[in-house]
Protein backbone atom coordinates (compact mmCIF):
# COMPACT_ATOMS: atom_id res chain seq x y z
CA UNK A 1 0.00 0.00 0.00
CA UNK A 2 1.35 3.39 -0.90
CA UNK A 3 2.25 5.90 1.76
CA UNK A 4 -0.46 8.22 0.46
CA UNK A 5 -3.18 5.62 0.67
CA UNK A 6 -2.14 4.63 4.21
CA UNK A 7 -2.30 8.22 5.32
CA UNK A 8 -5.65 8.72 3.62
CA UNK A 9 -7.03 5.67 5.35
CA UNK A 10 -5.62 6.71 8.67
CA UNK A 11 -7.23 10.12 8.60
CA UNK A 12 -10.34 8.82 6.86
CA UNK A 13 -9.99 11.09 3.86
CA UNK A 14 -13.13 11.41 1.76
CA UNK A 15 -12.86 9.56 -1.59
CA UNK A 16 -13.06 12.83 -3.53
CA UNK A 17 -10.58 14.61 -1.26
CA UNK A 18 -7.27 15.94 -2.52
CA UNK A 19 -3.97 15.70 -0.69
CA UNK A 20 -1.77 18.65 0.14
CA UNK A 21 0.77 18.04 -2.63
CA UNK A 22 -2.00 17.84 -5.25
CA UNK A 23 -3.46 21.13 -4.06
CA UNK A 24 0.01 22.69 -4.10
CA UNK A 25 0.53 21.51 -7.69
CA UNK A 26 -2.77 23.11 -8.71
CA UNK A 27 -1.63 26.38 -7.18
CA UNK A 28 1.76 26.23 -8.92
CA UNK A 29 0.02 25.73 -12.26
CA UNK A 30 -2.55 28.44 -11.65
CA UNK A 31 -0.04 30.99 -10.28
CA UNK A 32 3.32 30.58 -12.05
CA UNK A 33 4.50 33.88 -10.55
CA UNK A 34 4.05 35.44 -7.16
CA UNK A 35 3.50 32.22 -5.22
CA UNK A 36 6.38 29.95 -4.17
CA UNK A 37 5.44 26.62 -2.64
CA UNK A 38 8.26 25.78 -0.24
CA UNK A 39 7.05 22.41 1.03
CA UNK A 40 4.09 20.13 0.45
CA UNK A 41 3.13 16.96 2.30
CA UNK A 42 -0.04 14.90 2.43
CA UNK A 43 -1.99 17.15 4.74
CA UNK A 44 0.05 20.36 4.78
CA UNK A 45 1.59 22.79 2.36
CA UNK A 46 3.67 25.88 2.89
CA UNK A 47 3.89 28.83 0.51
CA UNK A 48 5.54 32.23 0.29
CA UNK A 49 3.13 34.68 -1.32
CA UNK A 50 3.68 38.12 -2.84
CA UNK A 51 1.66 40.90 -1.29
CA UNK A 52 -0.26 41.63 -4.48
CA UNK A 53 -1.14 37.99 -5.14
CA UNK A 54 -2.61 37.19 -1.71
CA UNK A 55 -6.22 38.06 -2.45
CA UNK A 56 -6.19 36.25 -5.81
CA UNK A 57 -4.71 33.15 -4.22
CA UNK A 58 -7.14 33.30 -1.30
CA UNK A 59 -10.05 33.59 -3.73
CA UNK A 60 -8.81 30.60 -5.71
CA UNK A 61 -8.33 28.53 -2.56
CA UNK A 62 -11.79 29.36 -1.30
CA UNK A 63 -13.69 28.92 -4.56
CA UNK A 64 -11.86 25.96 -6.13
CA UNK A 65 -10.10 24.09 -3.35
CA UNK A 66 -12.68 24.09 -0.52
CA UNK A 67 -10.61 25.98 2.02
CA UNK A 68 -13.41 26.92 4.42
CA UNK A 69 -11.75 27.82 7.66
CA UNK A 70 -9.15 30.35 8.77
CA UNK A 71 -7.24 28.79 11.63
CA UNK A 72 -5.06 31.75 12.35
CA UNK A 73 -3.66 35.04 11.10
CA UNK A 74 -0.63 36.37 12.93
CA UNK A 75 2.09 38.95 12.54
CA UNK A 76 5.84 38.71 12.97
CA UNK A 77 8.19 41.66 13.32
CA UNK A 78 11.66 41.06 11.84
CA UNK A 79 13.44 44.12 13.16
CA UNK A 80 16.96 43.31 11.89
CA UNK A 81 15.69 42.28 8.45
CA UNK A 82 13.54 45.45 8.27
CA UNK A 83 10.41 43.54 7.33
CA UNK A 84 7.13 42.39 8.75
CA UNK A 85 5.40 39.12 8.04
CA UNK A 86 1.80 38.07 8.10
CA UNK A 87 1.37 34.32 8.52
CA UNK A 88 -1.93 32.73 7.50
CA UNK A 89 -3.03 29.22 8.37
CA UNK A 90 -6.04 28.15 6.34
CA UNK A 91 -7.75 24.78 6.68
CA UNK A 92 -9.91 22.79 4.33
CA UNK A 93 -12.48 20.64 6.12
CA UNK A 94 -13.32 18.76 2.95
CA UNK A 95 -9.72 17.83 2.06
CA UNK A 96 -8.37 17.86 5.64
CA UNK A 97 -5.39 19.92 4.56
CA UNK A 98 -3.91 22.98 6.29
CA UNK A 99 -1.98 25.55 4.29
CA UNK A 100 0.53 28.02 5.66
CA UNK A 101 0.87 31.22 3.64
CA UNK A 102 3.57 33.75 4.47
CA UNK A 103 3.45 37.32 3.15
CA UNK A 104 6.44 39.65 3.52
CA UNK A 105 5.78 43.37 4.00
CA UNK A 106 8.16 46.35 4.22
CA UNK A 107 8.55 47.42 7.82
CA UNK A 108 8.08 51.14 7.14
CA UNK A 109 4.76 50.61 5.33
CA UNK A 110 3.14 47.34 6.42
CA UNK A 111 -0.06 47.07 4.40
CA UNK A 112 -1.79 44.03 3.01
CA UNK A 113 -5.24 43.17 1.63
CA UNK A 114 -7.74 41.90 4.15
CA UNK A 115 -9.17 38.41 3.72
CA UNK A 116 -12.11 39.12 6.05
CA UNK A 117 -14.53 39.63 3.10
CA UNK A 118 -13.81 35.99 2.16
CA UNK A 119 -13.64 34.38 5.61
CA UNK A 120 -15.41 36.08 8.49
CA UNK A 121 -13.24 34.08 10.88
CA UNK A 122 -10.23 36.24 9.98
CA UNK A 123 -11.96 39.37 11.27
CA UNK A 124 -10.66 39.45 14.84
CA UNK A 125 -7.32 37.87 13.96
CA UNK A 126 -6.58 40.74 11.59
CA UNK A 127 -7.90 43.27 14.04
CA UNK A 128 -5.62 41.86 16.74
CA UNK A 129 -2.63 41.87 14.38
CA UNK A 130 -3.26 45.55 13.65
CA UNK A 131 -3.68 46.20 17.35
CA UNK A 132 -0.37 44.54 18.24
CA UNK A 133 1.86 45.14 15.20
CA UNK A 134 0.34 48.08 13.36
CA UNK A 135 -0.08 46.07 10.17
CA UNK A 136 -2.86 47.67 8.12
CA UNK A 137 -5.39 45.34 6.49
CA UNK A 138 -6.90 47.15 3.52
CA UNK A 139 -10.63 46.51 3.25
CA UNK A 140 -11.12 45.32 6.82
CA UNK A 141 -14.61 46.31 8.09
CA UNK A 142 -13.52 47.56 11.50
CA UNK A 143 -9.83 48.10 12.11
CA UNK A 144 -9.95 49.29 15.71
CA UNK A 145 -8.21 48.44 18.97
CA UNK A 146 -9.32 45.07 20.27
CA UNK A 147 -7.24 43.89 23.23
CA UNK A 148 -5.51 47.17 24.03
CA UNK A 149 -7.67 50.04 25.30
CA UNK A 150 -8.89 52.67 22.86
CA UNK A 151 -6.40 55.48 22.52
CA UNK A 152 -3.27 53.34 22.89
CA UNK A 153 -0.56 54.97 20.81
CA UNK A 154 1.96 52.13 20.61
CA UNK A 155 2.07 48.72 18.96
CA UNK A 156 3.28 46.55 21.84
CA UNK A 157 4.30 43.36 19.99
CA UNK A 158 6.82 45.14 17.77
CA UNK A 159 10.37 44.24 18.66
CA UNK A 160 11.41 47.85 19.25
CA UNK A 161 8.80 48.13 21.99
CA UNK A 162 10.58 47.37 25.25
CA UNK A 163 8.39 45.41 27.64
CA UNK A 164 8.04 46.97 31.04
CA UNK A 165 8.24 50.48 29.60
CA UNK A 166 5.60 52.97 30.66
CA UNK A 167 3.44 54.10 27.77
Amino acid at each position, binding site marked *: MSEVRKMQQ*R*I*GLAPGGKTGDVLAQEIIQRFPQGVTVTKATL*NRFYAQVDKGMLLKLANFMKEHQDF*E*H*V*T*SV*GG*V*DWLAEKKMQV*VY*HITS*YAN*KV*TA*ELVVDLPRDKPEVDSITPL*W*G*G*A*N*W*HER*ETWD*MFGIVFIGHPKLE*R*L*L*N*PDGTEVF*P*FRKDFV*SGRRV
Partner: protein
Amino acid sequence: MAEMWLNMGPQHPMTHGLWNLRVKVDGETITEAEPVIGYLHRGWEKLTENRKFAQIIPMADRLCYGASMSWSHLYCLTMENLLEVEVPERAKYIRTIVLEAQRIGSHLMWLAALGTDLGSYTVFLYPVRERELFLDLMQNLCGARMTYNYPRIGGVRNDVPANFERDFTRVLNHFEKRLPDYEALCDQSTVFRMRMEDIGYLSAEQAKNLGVTGPNLRGSGVDYDVRRDDPYEVYDQVDWKVCVEKTCDAYARYRVKMDEMRESCNIIRQCIKKMPKGAIRVKAPRTAPRGKTAWAHVEDPRGEGFMYVIGNGDDQPYRLKVRSPIFVTVSAAPAMLVGYKVADVPAIMGSVDMCLGETDR
Protein backbone atom coordinates in the same frame (compact mmCIF):
# COMPACT_ATOMS: atom_id res chain seq x y z
CA MET B 1 -39.81 52.36 19.94
CA ALA B 2 -36.33 53.86 19.94
CA GLU B 3 -33.46 51.39 19.90
CA MET B 4 -30.86 51.55 22.60
CA TRP B 5 -27.50 50.03 23.49
CA LEU B 6 -27.36 47.82 26.56
CA ASN B 7 -24.12 46.82 28.30
CA MET B 8 -24.13 43.23 29.57
CA GLY B 9 -20.85 43.22 31.45
CA PRO B 10 -18.03 43.56 32.35
CA GLN B 11 -19.69 42.77 35.69
CA HIS B 12 -22.69 40.65 34.83
CA PRO B 13 -23.68 37.15 35.99
CA MET B 14 -23.86 36.03 32.36
CA THR B 15 -20.25 36.76 31.43
CA HIS B 16 -18.20 34.00 33.17
CA GLY B 17 -15.04 36.02 33.22
CA LEU B 18 -14.48 39.63 32.42
CA TRP B 19 -15.90 40.77 29.13
CA ASN B 20 -18.62 43.02 27.89
CA LEU B 21 -21.41 42.20 25.50
CA ARG B 22 -22.96 45.32 24.06
CA VAL B 23 -26.37 44.60 22.59
CA LYS B 24 -28.63 46.96 20.72
CA VAL B 25 -32.23 46.27 21.62
CA ASP B 26 -35.52 47.22 20.06
CA GLY B 27 -37.87 46.61 22.94
CA GLU B 28 -36.63 43.20 24.00
CA THR B 29 -35.38 42.00 20.60
CA ILE B 30 -31.67 42.15 19.85
CA THR B 31 -30.93 43.95 16.60
CA GLU B 32 -27.16 44.24 16.89
CA ALA B 33 -24.47 42.87 19.19
CA GLU B 34 -20.85 43.68 19.79
CA PRO B 35 -18.58 41.74 22.15
CA VAL B 36 -15.88 43.83 23.84
CA ILE B 37 -12.86 41.94 25.18
CA GLY B 38 -9.41 42.81 26.45
CA TYR B 39 -10.11 43.26 30.16
CA LEU B 40 -7.87 40.29 30.95
CA HIS B 41 -5.14 41.01 28.39
CA ARG B 42 -1.70 40.46 29.87
CA GLY B 43 0.52 40.26 26.79
CA TRP B 44 1.12 36.53 27.07
CA GLU B 45 2.71 36.24 23.65
CA LYS B 46 5.14 39.05 24.39
CA LEU B 47 5.97 37.63 27.83
CA THR B 48 7.08 34.34 26.28
CA GLU B 49 9.69 36.12 24.17
CA ASN B 50 11.73 36.70 27.33
CA ARG B 51 11.38 33.20 28.76
CA LYS B 52 13.27 29.96 28.18
CA PHE B 53 11.41 27.14 26.49
CA ALA B 54 10.85 25.15 29.68
CA GLN B 55 9.73 28.22 31.62
CA ILE B 56 6.82 28.72 29.25
CA ILE B 57 5.12 25.41 30.16
CA PRO B 58 3.68 26.62 33.51
CA MET B 59 2.74 29.89 31.82
CA ALA B 60 0.77 27.97 29.21
CA ASP B 61 -1.20 26.36 32.04
CA ARG B 62 -2.49 29.81 32.96
CA LEU B 63 -4.01 30.40 29.53
CA CYS B 64 -7.14 28.65 30.69
CA TYR B 65 -7.51 27.50 34.25
CA GLY B 66 -10.44 25.27 33.29
CA ALA B 67 -8.48 23.26 30.72
CA SER B 68 -4.88 23.97 31.57
CA MET B 69 -3.59 20.53 30.59
CA SER B 70 -4.63 20.97 26.97
CA TRP B 71 -2.78 24.28 26.71
CA SER B 72 0.52 23.18 28.20
CA HIS B 73 0.22 20.05 26.06
CA LEU B 74 -0.35 22.16 22.95
CA TYR B 75 2.73 24.21 23.75
CA CYS B 76 4.85 21.07 24.20
CA LEU B 77 3.48 19.60 20.96
CA THR B 78 4.44 22.77 19.07
CA MET B 79 7.92 22.77 20.56
CA GLU B 80 8.35 19.09 19.69
CA ASN B 81 7.56 19.96 16.08
CA LEU B 82 10.10 22.78 16.21
CA LEU B 83 12.86 20.77 17.87
CA GLU B 84 12.00 17.58 15.94
CA VAL B 85 11.57 15.37 18.99
CA GLU B 86 9.72 12.05 18.84
CA VAL B 87 7.79 11.34 22.03
CA PRO B 88 7.93 7.78 23.48
CA GLU B 89 4.82 5.67 22.99
CA ARG B 90 3.97 5.40 26.69
CA ALA B 91 4.09 9.18 27.11
CA LYS B 92 1.68 9.54 24.20
CA TYR B 93 -0.81 7.26 25.90
CA ILE B 94 -0.48 9.03 29.24
CA ARG B 95 -1.01 12.36 27.49
CA THR B 96 -4.11 11.13 25.73
CA ILE B 97 -5.56 9.89 29.02
CA VAL B 98 -4.95 13.12 30.88
CA LEU B 99 -6.20 15.22 27.96
CA GLU B 100 -9.48 13.35 27.91
CA ALA B 101 -9.80 13.53 31.70
CA GLN B 102 -9.21 17.25 31.33
CA ARG B 103 -11.90 17.43 28.67
CA ILE B 104 -14.42 15.81 30.99
CA GLY B 105 -13.41 18.15 33.82
CA SER B 106 -13.75 21.19 31.57
CA HIS B 107 -17.12 20.10 30.20
CA LEU B 108 -18.38 19.44 33.73
CA MET B 109 -17.42 22.94 34.74
CA TRP B 110 -19.24 24.27 31.71
CA LEU B 111 -22.34 22.25 32.59
CA ALA B 112 -22.23 23.60 36.15
CA ALA B 113 -21.97 27.17 34.85
CA LEU B 114 -24.83 26.58 32.42
CA GLY B 115 -26.91 25.28 35.31
CA THR B 116 -26.53 28.49 37.29
CA ASP B 117 -27.14 30.54 34.14
CA LEU B 118 -30.49 28.85 33.67
CA GLY B 119 -31.41 28.90 37.33
CA SER B 120 -31.01 25.24 38.20
CA TYR B 121 -28.82 24.99 41.25
CA THR B 122 -28.87 21.19 41.19
CA VAL B 123 -27.27 21.18 37.74
CA PHE B 124 -24.54 23.31 39.27
CA LEU B 125 -23.89 21.13 42.31
CA TYR B 126 -23.90 17.65 40.75
CA PRO B 127 -21.30 18.23 37.99
CA VAL B 128 -19.02 20.16 40.34
CA ARG B 129 -19.15 17.21 42.74
CA GLU B 130 -18.10 14.76 40.01
CA ARG B 131 -15.48 17.14 38.64
CA GLU B 132 -13.80 16.93 42.01
CA LEU B 133 -13.11 13.22 41.39
CA PHE B 134 -11.26 14.06 38.18
CA LEU B 135 -9.32 16.78 39.95
CA ASP B 136 -8.36 14.20 42.58
CA LEU B 137 -7.07 11.89 39.85
CA MET B 138 -4.97 14.72 38.45
CA GLN B 139 -3.71 15.62 41.89
CA ASN B 140 -2.64 12.03 42.38
CA LEU B 141 -0.80 12.21 39.08
CA CYS B 142 1.01 15.53 39.34
CA GLY B 143 0.26 17.15 42.65
CA ALA B 144 -1.86 20.05 41.47
CA ARG B 145 -5.59 20.49 41.17
CA MET B 146 -5.85 22.98 38.34
CA THR B 147 -2.57 24.24 36.87
CA TYR B 148 -0.72 21.00 36.38
CA ASN B 149 2.65 21.80 34.74
CA TYR B 150 2.68 18.14 33.71
CA PRO B 151 3.59 17.76 30.01
CA ARG B 152 7.22 18.28 29.06
CA ILE B 153 8.91 18.94 25.73
CA GLY B 154 9.66 15.34 24.79
CA GLY B 155 7.26 13.52 27.09
CA VAL B 156 5.65 13.98 30.48
CA ARG B 157 7.11 14.96 33.85
CA ASN B 158 6.62 11.76 35.81
CA ASP B 159 5.25 8.29 35.35
CA VAL B 160 1.79 7.39 36.55
CA PRO B 161 1.37 6.75 40.29
CA ALA B 162 0.59 3.37 41.83
CA ASN B 163 -3.00 2.18 41.30
CA PHE B 164 -3.44 4.70 38.48
CA GLU B 165 -5.46 2.27 36.38
CA ARG B 166 -7.62 1.10 39.28
CA ASP B 167 -8.44 4.67 40.36
CA PHE B 168 -9.26 5.82 36.85
CA THR B 169 -11.49 2.82 36.23
CA ARG B 170 -13.35 3.38 39.51
CA VAL B 171 -13.95 7.04 38.77
CA LEU B 172 -15.09 6.30 35.22
CA ASN B 173 -17.47 3.58 36.41
CA HIS B 174 -18.95 5.97 38.93
CA PHE B 175 -19.07 8.86 36.47
CA GLU B 176 -20.77 6.90 33.72
CA LYS B 177 -23.49 5.95 36.20
CA ARG B 178 -24.00 9.60 37.14
CA LEU B 179 -24.03 11.01 33.60
CA PRO B 180 -27.61 9.87 32.82
CA ASP B 181 -28.70 11.76 35.94
CA TYR B 182 -27.41 15.05 34.59
CA GLU B 183 -29.01 14.37 31.25
CA ALA B 184 -32.30 13.62 32.97
CA LEU B 185 -32.00 16.81 35.02
CA CYS B 186 -31.61 18.85 31.84
CA ASP B 187 -33.44 16.97 29.12
CA GLN B 188 -36.55 16.23 31.18
CA SER B 189 -36.78 19.74 32.55
CA THR B 190 -39.35 21.76 30.62
CA VAL B 191 -37.72 25.02 31.70
CA PHE B 192 -34.33 23.90 30.44
CA ARG B 193 -35.71 22.74 27.08
CA MET B 194 -37.76 25.90 26.59
CA ARG B 195 -34.74 28.08 27.21
CA MET B 196 -32.28 26.07 25.08
CA GLU B 197 -34.23 24.79 22.10
CA ASP B 198 -34.56 26.85 18.91
CA ILE B 199 -32.41 29.72 20.07
CA GLY B 200 -28.93 30.83 19.04
CA TYR B 201 -29.27 29.37 15.55
CA LEU B 202 -25.93 29.15 13.72
CA SER B 203 -26.02 27.45 10.32
CA ALA B 204 -23.23 25.16 9.16
CA GLU B 205 -22.16 27.66 6.47
CA GLN B 206 -22.01 30.50 8.98
CA ALA B 207 -20.16 28.42 11.54
CA LYS B 208 -17.49 27.41 9.04
CA ASN B 209 -17.08 30.87 7.59
CA LEU B 210 -16.94 32.61 10.97
CA GLY B 211 -14.24 30.26 12.23
CA VAL B 212 -16.30 28.64 14.98
CA THR B 213 -14.63 25.38 16.03
CA GLY B 214 -14.96 22.45 18.38
CA PRO B 215 -18.24 21.36 19.99
CA ASN B 216 -19.92 24.55 18.77
CA LEU B 217 -19.04 23.70 15.16
CA ARG B 218 -20.20 20.12 15.57
CA GLY B 219 -23.43 21.42 17.09
CA SER B 220 -24.01 23.06 13.71
CA GLY B 221 -23.75 19.73 11.92
CA VAL B 222 -20.17 19.98 10.59
CA ASP B 223 -18.39 16.66 11.00
CA TYR B 224 -14.87 17.82 11.80
CA ASP B 225 -12.67 17.03 14.76
CA VAL B 226 -8.92 17.68 14.83
CA ARG B 227 -8.43 14.54 16.91
CA ARG B 228 -9.72 12.39 14.04
CA ASP B 229 -8.91 14.48 10.98
CA ASP B 230 -5.37 15.51 11.86
CA PRO B 231 -4.49 13.00 14.56
CA TYR B 232 -1.92 13.74 17.23
CA GLU B 233 -0.83 11.56 20.18
CA VAL B 234 -2.69 8.21 19.88
CA TYR B 235 -6.18 9.28 18.82
CA ASP B 236 -5.77 7.31 15.59
CA GLN B 237 -5.14 4.09 17.53
CA VAL B 238 -8.30 4.05 19.60
CA ASP B 239 -11.81 3.45 18.37
CA TRP B 240 -14.15 6.35 19.00
CA LYS B 241 -16.69 8.47 17.19
CA VAL B 242 -17.09 12.18 16.59
CA CYS B 243 -20.27 13.59 18.14
CA VAL B 244 -22.33 15.72 15.75
CA GLU B 245 -25.77 17.28 16.13
CA LYS B 246 -27.73 18.74 13.27
CA THR B 247 -30.16 21.18 14.86
CA CYS B 248 -27.66 24.10 15.02
CA ASP B 249 -29.18 25.66 18.17
CA ALA B 250 -28.00 26.12 21.74
CA TYR B 251 -29.51 22.76 22.67
CA ALA B 252 -27.41 21.01 19.98
CA ARG B 253 -24.24 22.54 21.39
CA TYR B 254 -25.25 21.25 24.81
CA ARG B 255 -25.94 17.75 23.43
CA VAL B 256 -22.56 17.57 21.68
CA LYS B 257 -20.69 18.35 24.89
CA MET B 258 -22.68 15.76 26.85
CA ASP B 259 -21.98 13.07 24.24
CA GLU B 260 -18.31 14.03 24.15
CA MET B 261 -17.96 13.28 27.85
CA ARG B 262 -19.17 9.73 27.21
CA GLU B 263 -16.74 9.36 24.28
CA SER B 264 -13.90 10.65 26.46
CA CYS B 265 -14.62 7.88 28.99
CA ASN B 266 -14.48 5.41 26.13
CA ILE B 267 -11.11 6.76 24.91
CA ILE B 268 -9.62 6.69 28.41
CA ARG B 269 -10.69 3.07 28.97
CA GLN B 270 -9.10 1.94 25.70
CA CYS B 271 -5.89 3.86 26.38
CA ILE B 272 -5.53 2.36 29.85
CA LYS B 273 -5.91 -1.11 28.35
CA LYS B 274 -3.42 -0.49 25.54
CA MET B 275 -0.80 1.54 27.40
CA PRO B 276 2.65 -0.01 26.82
CA LYS B 277 5.59 -0.02 29.21
CA GLY B 278 8.70 1.98 28.51
CA ALA B 279 10.26 5.43 28.71
CA ILE B 280 8.08 8.45 29.42
CA ARG B 281 10.39 11.19 28.24
CA VAL B 282 13.28 11.86 25.86
CA LYS B 283 15.81 14.62 26.13
CA ALA B 284 15.00 17.55 23.87
CA PRO B 285 17.51 20.01 22.42
CA ARG B 286 17.73 23.25 24.36
CA THR B 287 18.03 25.65 21.44
CA ALA B 288 16.24 26.14 18.15
CA PRO B 289 17.75 27.62 14.97
CA ARG B 290 16.88 31.23 14.17
CA GLY B 291 14.03 31.61 11.72
CA LYS B 292 12.87 28.01 11.93
CA THR B 293 9.11 27.77 12.32
CA ALA B 294 6.66 25.13 13.48
CA TRP B 295 3.02 24.92 14.41
CA ALA B 296 0.53 22.50 15.86
CA HIS B 297 -3.19 22.45 16.41
CA VAL B 298 -5.25 20.35 18.80
CA GLU B 299 -8.84 19.83 19.80
CA ASP B 300 -9.15 21.83 22.98
CA PRO B 301 -12.36 21.23 25.01
CA ARG B 302 -13.61 24.51 23.53
CA GLY B 303 -12.42 24.21 19.94
CA GLU B 304 -9.31 24.31 17.84
CA GLY B 305 -6.27 25.47 19.79
CA PHE B 306 -3.27 26.45 17.71
CA MET B 307 0.27 27.66 18.32
CA TYR B 308 2.88 28.93 15.89
CA VAL B 309 6.46 29.34 17.04
CA ILE B 310 9.63 30.81 15.53
CA GLY B 311 13.10 29.94 16.83
CA ASN B 312 15.66 32.60 17.64
CA GLY B 313 18.97 30.72 17.63
CA ASP B 314 18.93 30.52 21.42
CA ASP B 315 16.71 28.99 24.09
CA GLN B 316 13.91 31.56 23.77
CA PRO B 317 11.26 31.80 21.08
CA TYR B 318 11.39 34.74 18.67
CA ARG B 319 7.62 34.75 18.44
CA LEU B 320 4.88 32.53 19.80
CA LYS B 321 1.43 33.04 18.39
CA VAL B 322 -1.63 31.53 20.07
CA ARG B 323 -4.99 30.95 18.47
CA SER B 324 -7.63 30.63 21.09
CA PRO B 325 -10.89 28.93 20.05
CA ILE B 326 -13.16 31.16 22.11
CA PHE B 327 -11.45 34.32 20.81
CA VAL B 328 -12.91 33.50 17.40
CA THR B 329 -16.18 32.00 18.63
CA VAL B 330 -17.06 35.10 20.62
CA SER B 331 -16.47 37.22 17.51
CA ALA B 332 -19.25 35.15 15.93
CA ALA B 333 -21.62 35.93 18.82
CA PRO B 334 -23.61 38.56 16.86
CA ALA B 335 -24.57 35.88 14.32
CA MET B 336 -26.04 33.77 17.11
CA LEU B 337 -27.73 36.59 19.03
CA VAL B 338 -29.44 38.85 16.52
CA GLY B 339 -33.19 38.31 16.39
CA TYR B 340 -33.53 36.71 19.83
CA LYS B 341 -34.61 38.29 23.12
CA VAL B 342 -32.34 39.77 25.77
CA ALA B 343 -33.44 37.00 28.12
CA ASP B 344 -32.00 34.43 25.71
CA VAL B 345 -28.48 35.87 25.93
CA PRO B 346 -27.38 33.89 29.03
CA ALA B 347 -28.57 30.63 27.49
CA ILE B 348 -26.93 31.28 24.10
CA MET B 349 -23.60 32.48 25.48
CA GLY B 350 -23.73 29.79 28.17
CA SER B 351 -23.98 27.10 25.51
CA VAL B 352 -20.76 28.43 23.92
CA ASP B 353 -18.57 27.76 26.99
CA MET B 354 -16.70 31.03 27.43
CA CYS B 355 -13.20 31.20 28.88
CA LEU B 356 -11.60 34.60 29.06
CA GLY B 357 -8.09 33.60 30.09
CA GLU B 358 -7.36 32.17 26.68
CA THR B 359 -9.43 34.75 24.81
CA ASP B 360 -7.52 37.78 26.02
CA ARG B 361 -4.16 36.06 26.57
